[in-house]
């Protein structure tokens, strides 16, 4: 579904992406893992078209995404830090998003209900806690029932209850055959979710394996242990 071929990106002297090639298919749930500054976010942003690669290209459903914007209709993105205009209410933000994507008729309001955002609709964004803002971001990502979900540090600010609801939502979506891309530092959260792991370091793609393969290679059951194993090896 998403194929990146030899994507490189340099910010000043820093090589954020160095010749990265990756292919993601439907029904996969991929964890994008790596230390800080390894290029995870840059990769995500490249896929979303926020960052334009210096070389290489990315295709979405066999179409180059460069100078295209329509393909994003099929992506739900949850940013690492969600910040919204201070004086909008949650209701406004949701309405605006619905307005922007006015062509998708069906909306998936499961998370809004699950997070009980309905009761907070009139609250201004600046008055919300980090966690609530994160809930709004999550709800927005799932709102239009997109084929691809890109979640950047999704569980960072969420309380355990919300986190659990969220994970379940991801699993149901995965089962519907959607492609889910997650980056996270909290590896323990990912255990039950993911089918594949992409490990990045210094802008390079170190490996892209299924979780089973990774477990086999490292002999560790837990993802966090497995990754730790990889990291010490490197």
């Amino acid at each position, binding site marked *: 579904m998403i194929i990146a071929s030899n994507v490189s990106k340099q910010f000043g002297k820093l090589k954020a992406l160095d010749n990265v090639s990756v292919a993601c298919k439907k029904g996969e749930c991929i964890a994008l893992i790596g230390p800080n500054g390894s290029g995870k976010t840059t990769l995500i942003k490249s896929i979303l078209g926020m960052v334009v690669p210096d070389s290489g290209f990315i295709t979405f459903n066999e179409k180059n995404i460069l100078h295209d914007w329509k393909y994003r209709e099929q992506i739900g993105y949850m940013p690492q830090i969600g910040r919204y205009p201070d004086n909008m209410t949650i209701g406004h933000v949701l309405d*605006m998003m619905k307005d922007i994507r006015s062509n998708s008729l069906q909306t998936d309001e499961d998370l809004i209900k699950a997070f009980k955002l309905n009761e907070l609709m009139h609250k201004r964004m600046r008055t919300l806690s980090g966690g609530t803002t994160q809930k709004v971001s999550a709800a*927005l990502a799932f709102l239009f029932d997109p084929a691809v979900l890109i979640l950047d540090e999704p569980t960072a600010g969420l309380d355990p209850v919300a986190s659990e609801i969220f994970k379940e939502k991801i699993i149901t979506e995965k089962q519907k055959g959607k492609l889910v891309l997650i980056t996270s530092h909290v590896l323990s959260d990912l255990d039950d979710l993911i089918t594949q792991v992409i490990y990045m370091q210094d802008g390079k793609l170190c490996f892209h394996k299924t979780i089973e393969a990774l477990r086999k290679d490292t002999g560790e059951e837990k993802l966090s242990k497995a990754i730790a194993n990889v990291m010490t090896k490197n």
Partner: protein
Amino acid sequence: MKKIIKYVMTDILRNRIVLVYTVFLLITSFSVFSLEDNNSKGLLSLLNVILIVVPLVSIIFSTIYVYNSAEFIELLVSQPLKRKSIWLSLFTGLASSLSFAFFIGAGIPVLLYQPNSVGCMMIGIGILLSVIFVAIAMLAAVQTRDKAKGIGIAILLWLYFSLLFDGLVLFLLFQFADYPLEKPMIAISALNPIDLGRILILLQLDVSAMMGYTGAIFKDFFGTYIGGIFSFTVLLIWIGIPVFFSTRKFNRKDL
């Protein structure tokens, strides 16, 4: 695009700084008109406010707003929207809400006390200056990722347009005092929207003093139909060029 504008505007119009700005303009305008014994003198005091405060607030508020909206802009970019329309909506939202704030704050008192050509000219120039400095602010903000640096650039630009440019002009005038500079001055005034706006207002206001030799040349030029079209075109160019370049930059920018 309209949808984003609508939401950006509702957001900005509820912003506390914009409210304070509006109220400040309202209080200043009303107090200026009620304290001065004649209305045209009030208009003159208001002129200074418009030429200093409006660009300052417009440029700094817009810069900060753009930086504070960085994540929101990212979110919008991740949506199926053209970058160009995101940026232009942001510009339109900022420009129209600041113009609106100016119109409420200064425009209404002016219309109440001075409903004549000077008053209208003043409101027009005030609105144009608001829009111009929003455009300049967005150009400054798109150039650098660093918020502090961006705000610094914005303040410097404001300082340049409201003070340094005039100092430079004065310096040049004395350096080239032996040459006839009246006509080049018209061209030079086009290089600074604040100066251009001020001259346009003064030509309506301080007619006596402006009728000196230089003033007469200004009047002959700006007072005519063609001069009027020229000056408003120049002011529109001052909006168009920064918007064009900032949009181009934003289109290629990595977020």
